[in-house]
């Protein structure tokens, strides 16, 4: 199959890598995120897996955790470089090459070596190591990457001198060492982040939350990009099924016509089928400036749809569709070009011949797809003439004709001194001026006027319109021709310049806006920027509403303090619910003063943006629509990112809370157990020293043991209530479990006859052994506590149907009528049975642990009414039959 053919380029790249070392880069957003630590951890894992790992150079910057990690690695001593009296230490590349380890750890890939070293830059050292077949782990901060250097400098105001060419990490494995900006700032405050002197000046600014968020995003994006590229490379090199054999790139030309939407969808399908990246391009010709409202909206919607379907969206100014398309397709290295062809053949302003024919002829190597489109109404065809006045302004004629008169007078003055043949050339001046400044028709009129004037005043016979010399006829024709050609040329240049100006203004406001958004980390900030920026660009009032549970609340507005009427509110809500524009100028709820647009990402509306004007004009001019939609798309993406960040940090918050609770629990259990251990141990020592006190000591000892069990229960209860039970389920033999519980309760069961009745062929149960152990201990202890003194306890397991039941039976007063369920509640003690101390926690713990494992507990009086039975029931899901042997 053709599309199973491995891509030769990818194969070459793979082959070039064979025999070379692999580079893995630990990429971080900023200093202090823990790259070196992560590298050392990974290196240690490789070392433990038997790889020969050495340290080429690692900067610990005095961080303790990092220093601890360095232990256990062989460190290649650094080389002293003497330079102008200074001794500097650099990585000793020769020593590493001679040592030839399997993997070498090299910190700070972007480092610049001391003058006098073999290479200027450390990455060059690394490349040499890789060439020698040695794997390298290294670290890098995102701002050192050359292609991002400018961008990073633009928002951090800090320019790093040490940059790294992107190609170095192109084939490297990237691992992002990620940490939340807040956490990093915290670490910085605690002095855990090493900062080089030169950067400390700009420190406060550099480590702002917005900067860190932006850097973090860059790092994550870069890594995602690399993963994509490497995966594709791999798939192509291995001809994994379904991947295109060569890298196709689709370009689809869109226009303002409604059929363009269909065209975009068709392109999307083709791009999907080819698994190729695709771009929609709109060629902005002079004609674009006279689009009407509907056409602009149509175009904006088409572009919006394309963006949502995953296309890159571009707008390119050009003098003609054909040329613009050719240029763009070449720039984008497109392999497939998709154009639409309407039945009326007017799709791309076909004035002469078919544009498709010319495209095919003039772009060899480009596959051109022509998608037929439905014919559209010709409503717009005459409108263009009406909108601009092709005859130009009256002032234009006055000035041009005045100039012609002036030239005539001037010519007469010269003519008076003798007939100069080339005097006709003087008339080129008014013709050119008229054509360039006032357009085609004014130019032609001036050309006519000039030739008439020339003829009348200068061509013999003068003061008549007759021409004797045929040569002079040519002069008149040339004047007319110059007028026509010049005016057309200049008119076109002018229109193009205007377009380029408009489109570059639009692009720069888009880019500026995008840059601003990158640094924003809170919704409020984003809301403000969005309102102020769009308000400024479109010169209107703006408002941003964000859904908050059931209501829509105003987050920001420009000018501040804008409010909404009830009708406006309804329109905004409609936009939120339907993900479509509403209000004035839209199709819905048009009575509202405001026009609302949904702002969101991935099909979810995250906010509603409103636009209005204080004068009575419509909120937005149609030609501004594409810009507005692009801005809102950007804002939607940023909002999505902020929401995601919020979710992540709240997740981190929950984790932090769990960690605290865990720490508290273990410290409390430690603090309570230590004194108990001392008390119990000391009692034993006293008994050993003076056995005659045994009797008094026994009481103290049993009380201390009771206290210990109480503490243990209390802690267990807290764990249940906190939902902090950690389980590891495994098959447990009930005989094992009962035996260890009984053994632990030796002291309690001292004078109690105990019967254990477990059938020999009992299956195993699936439980957490530790939790189950606590359940059993509490059940048996409960039986000992509530049964009559000296009465026996029976532990029985039986299979009943599919279930397995383990019961603990006591001999005693039993459970009062109707208390069977309540008895498992916290701090419940059976009424009138307080002969023994107890907290009533035991059974609650049994229930809590059992339910956490998915088991049922029950309590009942024995059928023979001699006492109570407490049981744990295991359903089929908790039973593991004995394996066949």
């Amino acid at each position: 199959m053709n599309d199973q053919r491995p891509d030769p380029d990818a194969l070459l790249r793979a082959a070039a890598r064979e025999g070379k070392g692999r580079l893995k880069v630990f990429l971080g957003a900023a200093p202090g995120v823990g790259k070196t630590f992560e590298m050392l951890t990974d290196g240690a894992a490789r070392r433990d897996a038997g790889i020969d790992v050495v340290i080429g150079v690692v900067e610990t910057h005095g961080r303790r955790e990092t220093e601890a990690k360095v232990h256990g690695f062989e460190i290649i001593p650094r080389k002293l470089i003497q330079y102008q009296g200074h001794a500097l230490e650099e990585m000793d590349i020769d020593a590493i090459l001679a040592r030839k380890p399997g993997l070498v750890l090299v910190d700070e890939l972007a480092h610049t070596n001391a003058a006098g070293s073999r290479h200027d830059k450390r990455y060059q050292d690394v490349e040499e190591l890789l060439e020698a077949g040695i794997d390298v782990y290294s670290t890098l901060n995102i701002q050192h990457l050359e292609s991002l250097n400018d961008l990073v400098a633009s928002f951090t105001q800090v320019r790093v001198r040490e940059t790294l060419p992107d190609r170095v990490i192109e084939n490297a494995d990237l691992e992002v060492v990620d940490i939340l900006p807040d956490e990093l700032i915290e670490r910085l405050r605690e002095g855990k982040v090493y900062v080089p002197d030169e950067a400390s000046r700009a420190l406060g600014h550099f480590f702002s939350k917005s900067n860190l968020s932006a850097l973090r995003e860059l790092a994550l994006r870069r890594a995602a990009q690399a993963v994509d590229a490497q995966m594709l490379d791999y798939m192509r090199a291995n001809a994994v099924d379904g991947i295109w054999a060569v890298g196709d790139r689709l370009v689809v030309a869109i226009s303002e016509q409604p059929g363009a939407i269909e065209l975009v969808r068709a392109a999307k399908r083709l791009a999907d089928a080819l698994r190729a990246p695709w771009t929609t391009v709109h060629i902005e010709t002079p004609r674009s400036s006279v689009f009407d409202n509907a056409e602009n909206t149509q175009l904006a919607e088409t572009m919006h749809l394309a963006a949502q379907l995953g296309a890159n969206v571009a707008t390119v100014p050009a003098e003609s569709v054909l040329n613009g398309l050719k240029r763009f397709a070449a720039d984008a290295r497109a392999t497939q070009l998709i154009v639409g062809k309407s039945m009326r053949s007017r799709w791309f302003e076909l004035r002469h011949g078919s544009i498709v024919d010319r495209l095919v002829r003039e772009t060899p190597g480009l596959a051109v797809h022509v998608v037929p489109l439905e014919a559209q109404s010709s409503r717009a065809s005459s409108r263009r003439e009406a909108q601009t006045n092709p005859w130009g302004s009256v002032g234009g004629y006055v000035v041009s004709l005045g100039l012609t008169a002036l030239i005539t007078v001037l010519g007469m003055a010269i003519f008076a001194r003798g007939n100069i043949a080339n005097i006709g050339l003087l008339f080129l001046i008014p013709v050119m001026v008229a054509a360039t400044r006032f357009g085609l028709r004014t130019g032609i009129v001036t050309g006519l006027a000039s030739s008439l004037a020339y003829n009348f005043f200068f061509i013999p016979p003068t003061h008549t319109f007759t021409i004797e010399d045929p040569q002079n006829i040519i002069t008149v024709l040339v004047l007319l021709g110059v007028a026509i050609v010049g005016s057309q040329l200049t008119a076109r240049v002018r229109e193009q310049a205007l377009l380029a100006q408009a489109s570059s203004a639009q692009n720069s406001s888009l880019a500026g806006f995008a840059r601003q958004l990158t640094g924003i980390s809170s919704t409020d900030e984003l809301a403000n920027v969005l309102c102020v920026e769009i308000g400024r660009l479109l010169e209107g009032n703006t408002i941003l509403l964000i859904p908050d549970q059931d209501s829509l609340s105003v987050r920001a507005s420009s000018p501040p303090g804008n409010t909404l009427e009830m009708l406006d509110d309804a329109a905004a809500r409609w936009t939120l619910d339907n993900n479509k524009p509403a209000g004035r100028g839209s199709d819905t709820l048009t009575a509202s003063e405001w026009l609302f647009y949904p702002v969101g990402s991935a099909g979810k509306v995250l906010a509603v943006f409103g636009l209005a004007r204080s004068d009575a004009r419509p909120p937005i001019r149609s030609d501004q629509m594409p810009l507005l939609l692009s801005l809102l798309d950007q804002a939607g993406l940023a909002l999505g990112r902020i929401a995601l960040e919020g979710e992540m940090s709240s997740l981190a918050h929950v984790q932090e809370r769990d960690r605290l609770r865990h720490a508290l629990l273990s410290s409390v259990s430690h603090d309570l157990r230590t004194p108990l251990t001392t008390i119990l141990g000391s009692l034993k020592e006293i008994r050993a020293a003076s056995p005659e006190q045994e009797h008094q000591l026994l009481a103290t000892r049993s009380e201390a043991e009771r206290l210990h069990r109480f503490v243990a229960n209390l802690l267990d209860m807290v764990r249940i209530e906190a939902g902090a039970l950690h389980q590891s389920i495994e098959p447990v033999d009930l005989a094992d479990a009962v035996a260890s519980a009984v053994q632990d309760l030796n002291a309690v069961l001292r004078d109690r006859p105990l019967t254990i009745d477990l059938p020999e062929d009992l299956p195993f149960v699936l439980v957490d052994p530790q939790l189950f152990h606590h359940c059993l201990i509490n059940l048996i202890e409960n039986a000992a506590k509530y049964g009559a003194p000296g009465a026996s306890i029976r532990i029985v397991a039986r299979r009943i149907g599919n279930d397995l039941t383990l019961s603990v039976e006591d001999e005693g007063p039993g459970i009062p009528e109707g208390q069977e369920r309540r008895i498992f509640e916290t701090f419940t003690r059976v009424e009138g049975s307080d002969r023994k101390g107890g907290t009533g926690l035991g059974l609650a713990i049994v229930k809590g642990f059992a339910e956490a494992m998915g088991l049922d507990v029950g309590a009942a009086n024995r059928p023979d009414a001699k006492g109570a039975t407490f049981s744990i029931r295991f359903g089929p899901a908790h039973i593991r039959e004995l394996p066949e042997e």
Partner: protein
Amino acid sequence: MRNPVTVLVVDDEPAIRRLLHASLTRADYRVVEAGSARDTLSAIQIDKPEVVLLDLGLPDRDGLELIPIIKAAGAAVIVVSARDATEQKVAALDLGADDYVSKPFDSEEVLARIRAAMRHRLSSETDSPIVSCGDIEIDLVARLVRKGGVEVHLTPKEYGLLAELAKSAGRVVTHTHLLKSVWGPGHETDVEYLRVAARGIRRKLEDDPSQPALLRNEPGVGYRMQIGSQSS
């Protein structure tokens, strides 16, 4: 006369150290104390203890990290900790700890653990081939098990399990370790094999299988073979 065995007690609580000091001295051990990881490391160098009673909650370092260091110095490690999560116990044992005791502990229990650890150290030198518990004898050379002098037939896995426990008699052996050494690598998580074999051993060797005296189950951690005279 034999030199007394040196025991290093590591705990950041002076009260616990005092208590253990008293019980151990009474049992004729030489006792050295340490309250931090730093002190522990120097005590290992200077006093060369045979046994270290190690608390995991130390102020300057996690006690778990010390286990490999102490083992490397040749001493037996018994973890004495208030952390009773099974993962902690298993982690300590996996790192090479010989045994563990939970707080609050019984000083007799601690002494029994020390004896078991010491016996293991000595037996690995003298290689006593017969391990006995009550009327049960396990002959590791002849691969025979006798109860009251009568040979008992065990399946190969049952014998393997019993022999593995007998080699570390008195000490807890983790599930993972047992499964790996008896059933082979790849079976580390097949706890139910272990349960089946343990049940078989109990049925064949225990006087009362429901109240086993030979094999003791440590929930979630492993098994321990009881030996000699057990303290109450």
